[in-house]
């Protein structure tokens, strides 16, 4: 009898490891997962690092799933202020987490909550004009990366969207210019599409304000009146469909909101007489799904508390760091099913739903291994542009439950 497992080939596989959700991967599955060359370096690493089956633990000691769930339910019952954080899961997981958080009067935040809130704050203060990956691929003739580092994340952006083989507007694809605006350390190196670099010395928001002034042909004071920026302004005016791309999670925490708002202002100015649009890259680890599902289920984006008689939305207050720092929680429920993100340090009892490698063995810790959506079970995720969602396949079955299943069982255990 051969111990070698059969190899199964899966096509059109959606990769869940960043907000782009590339869905054109072929993955060979034997006792490991082997994505083809269409997977970017980050994805290739992530598929290779997928954890095997593991047993749940209580305070580091292996137990059955039933025992772990019973203990976790005990913690939840005892808790007055649980914090539901991480939330790195698929739509089903978010639905289950929000239902449980409401039942337990918890606070909810995502592990990329700060980045998500950055975009949300700009949206809620001024709105914006945006576009989607499919539009960029076919219509854009000028793409400006506003401080986006595609060397570390969103690595397939160029292959799939900026330099595809064909486009509905072929002339725009052939003449497409890619400009990177930002600190030199993150400039892209792209054989498929040459990238012009405008290295910034000032903050990105100031640079964009400068650009906006140049577009308005207003005289700009200050020493940093670069020629490159002036020619970018000219190019933006001449373009038929320029797109500015930013990644809230990669922006400086102090300058991030200002940068996004300035980019949106540039786009709004352009749209008065021509067309232009923006696109945010982000929502990794299920962040876009968490944000969207929270908004439709409750009316509010993340940064939400179910503690009171009514929903309370205050993203500046209900974020993981602050809730823990201010002692506003007595239990942490941490969900992270994609990459191995450890919960922040704290001294509370905790329930951790994550793949092996994130298990915590400390005191008062219930660790429940869960599968990764798109690997261990089917599911759905919302893409970075907030429009397209993709189905995730189940590529293997090693007996790991989904986060949604565990959360629902916890919910039932409370009733």
């Amino acid at each position: 009898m051969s111990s070698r497992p059969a190899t199964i080939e899966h096509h059109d596989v959606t990769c869940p490891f960043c907000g782009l959700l590339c869905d054109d991967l072929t993955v060979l599955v034997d006792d490991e997962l082997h994505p083809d060359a269409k997977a970017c370096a980050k994805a290739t690493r992530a598929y290779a690092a997928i954890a095997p089956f593991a047993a749940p633990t209580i305070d580091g000691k292996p137990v059955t799933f039933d025992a772990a769930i019973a203990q976790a339910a005990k913690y939840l019952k005892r808790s007055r202020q649980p914090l539901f954080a991480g939330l790195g899961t698929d739509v089903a997981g978010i639905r289950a987490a929000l239902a449980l958080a409401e039942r337990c009067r918890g606070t909810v935040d995502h592990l990329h909550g700060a980045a998500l809130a950055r975009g949300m704050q700009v949206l809620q203060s001024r709105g914006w004009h945006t576009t989607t990956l499919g539009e960029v691929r076919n219509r854009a003739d000028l793409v400006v990366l506003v401080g986006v580092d595609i060397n570390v994340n969103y690595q397939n952006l160029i292959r799939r969207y900026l330099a595809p083989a064909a486009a509905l507007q072929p002339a725009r694809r052939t003449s497409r210019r890619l400009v990177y605006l930002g600190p030199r350390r993150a400039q892209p190196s792209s054989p498929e599409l040459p990238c012009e670099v405008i290295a910034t010395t000032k903050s990105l928001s100031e640079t964009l304000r400068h650009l906006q002034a140049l577009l308005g042909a207003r005289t700009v004071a200050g020493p940093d009146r670069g020629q490159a920026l002036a020619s970018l302004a000219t190019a933006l005016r001449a373009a038929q469909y320029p797109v500015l791309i930013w990644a809230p999670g990669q922006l400086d925490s102090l300058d991030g909101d200002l940068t996004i708002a300035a980019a949106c202002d540039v786009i709004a100015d352009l749209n008065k007489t021509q067309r232009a649009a923006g696109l945010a890259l982000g929502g990794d680890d299920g962040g876009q799904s968490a944000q969207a599902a929270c908004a439709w289920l409750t009316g509010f984006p993340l940064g939400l508390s179910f503690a009171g008689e009514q929903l309370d939305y205050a993203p500046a207050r209900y974020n993981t760091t602050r809730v823990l720092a201010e002692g506003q929680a007595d239990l942490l429920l941490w969900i992270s099913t994609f990459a191995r993100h450890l919960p922040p340090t704290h001294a509370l009892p905790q329930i951790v739903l994550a793949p092996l490698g994130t298990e915590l063995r400390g005191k008062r810790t219930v660790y429940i291994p869960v599968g990764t959506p798109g690997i261990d079970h089917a599911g759905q995720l919302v893409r970075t542009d907030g429009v397209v969602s993709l189905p995730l396949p189940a590529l293997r079955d090693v007996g790991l439950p989904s986060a949604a299943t565990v959360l629902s069982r916890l919910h039932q255990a409370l009733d």
Partner: protein
Amino acid sequence: MQAKITELRGARIYDPTHGIDGEVRSVFVSGDGIVASPRDPGTIKELLDLSGCVMMAGGIDIHTHIGGGKVNIGRMLLPEDHLAERSTRGEYPRLGSGRYSPSTLLAGYRYAEMGYTACFEPAMLPANARQAHMEMADTPIVDKGAYALLGNDDFLLRQLAGGADPKLIQDYIAWTLHASQALAIKVVNPGGINAFKFNQRRLDLDERNAAYGITPRQILLALAEGIHALGLPHPLHIHGCNLGVAGNVNTTLATIEALAGLPAHLTHVQFHSYGTEGDRKFSSGAQRIAEAVNANANISIDIGQIMFGQTVTESGDSMRQYAGSAFAYPKKSVIMDIECDAGCGVVPFKYKDSSFVNALQWAIGLELFLSVTDPWRVFLTTDHPNGAPFTSYPHLIRLLMDRSFRRDMLATILPEAAAASVLGSLEREYSLYEIAIITRAAPARSLGLSTLGHLGIGARGDITVYTDHPDRERMFKAPRLVYKAGEQIIREGKIVATPRGATHVVRPEFDSSIERLLDTYFDQYMSVRRANFMVSDHEIEEFGQSPLIRHTARR
């Protein structure tokens, strides 16, 4: 063993599908449906005396933006709505928020509370279908379904520009319905959303899209003919050119003429019934539209009535929404170009009775309701939330049923606007029978939902019982009892059960060779694979936990 039978006795029944106009008779409910009077009265396990009550089938909203990208953008854009209106623990089964952009849970509860048991999302972008279905799945109690948007997608425009065979267009329509799990097809500003991506700022019925050289007229006809040939129950659902533009009454009349007898539904026609007369170059075109609708039996309409107050407008019509964003209140809006598929615009807006234009819009909507003679071709909508949130339906029903109340309201709007409308001279009052037509029987018939919208034997047990009251607003606001699929969901104004509600789709046949053509197109241009673009039954039934009800085309 026979299922338990409940007898609902003593109510006056309004069931226009069967011509029943206020007759007192019993309705028997068993399992999930309405059954015949049992031969053996011993099988009746429960008897409810509903004397003094009015009974209708559950309400059906044929056009309400309850789920999908732009609706959710509206929620994120406007925390002010949600902070101002939040439900309290215990008020509903789960917490929710929002008056004009309600959370999905709250929307489901509030529809049910109003006696509505089915709601149809009219603007589902195929590229966004998966999320639209997720949101609809999380809208509890009510049945739902969605209309897929076509007519601005580059695939169709390219095919039309290349002189495609009508059979291919039919196959594409049918494939889109399958792929997006839709019940009907809608077109929004035909070709205009696409043209806006090429910086065209307006597109009249016979103006050419700069990129493809085709006109809205060509797109409308291709879709209306394709749908007719496929034998879909619901005709092409049209949001025409020039929404909100003074003088668009001519575009709307030309659209009716262009259709030349083909079945079509003109949606939120109030927004398309404006003339240019008078000092302010803005006048009511309602009488001309009503005349045309009365004369063309192929046309049905819903109104898109506006109500005064704050709301948010959410539309696929990025071209017109961009123009409208100058009037945003509060001052923020979202405009999106989407996936070579369509677009969207989300613009908050406050309708004021002191504004000439807004006050006249209010009057135009009511003029239309009262001037189109055949209630089977008029459906009650506010184009939620574009004209007003759906929660204003009871107030709207009172405006239609109660002439003196209507006159009192008319007296409160800007007098110049009141003077510019014939509304004050319209005597008509809708009867309960007519209200039952425009809020259930007619929408069900138009959508081909044979078991909904009526109380006959074999109907699904979606039933609303109102306590009769001369104040119709009060009466329609809080029904005494509501049944959904035979289960009591509202008792004395309280939600007592929260079933999930089914998803209605239509499944016309098509030649699968279109899929090969689409595979090539998706490979070359689209941002996702064709297989992943398609929403599977499993996603609706398992992930969404919503039973699928598959309707067939007539042919």
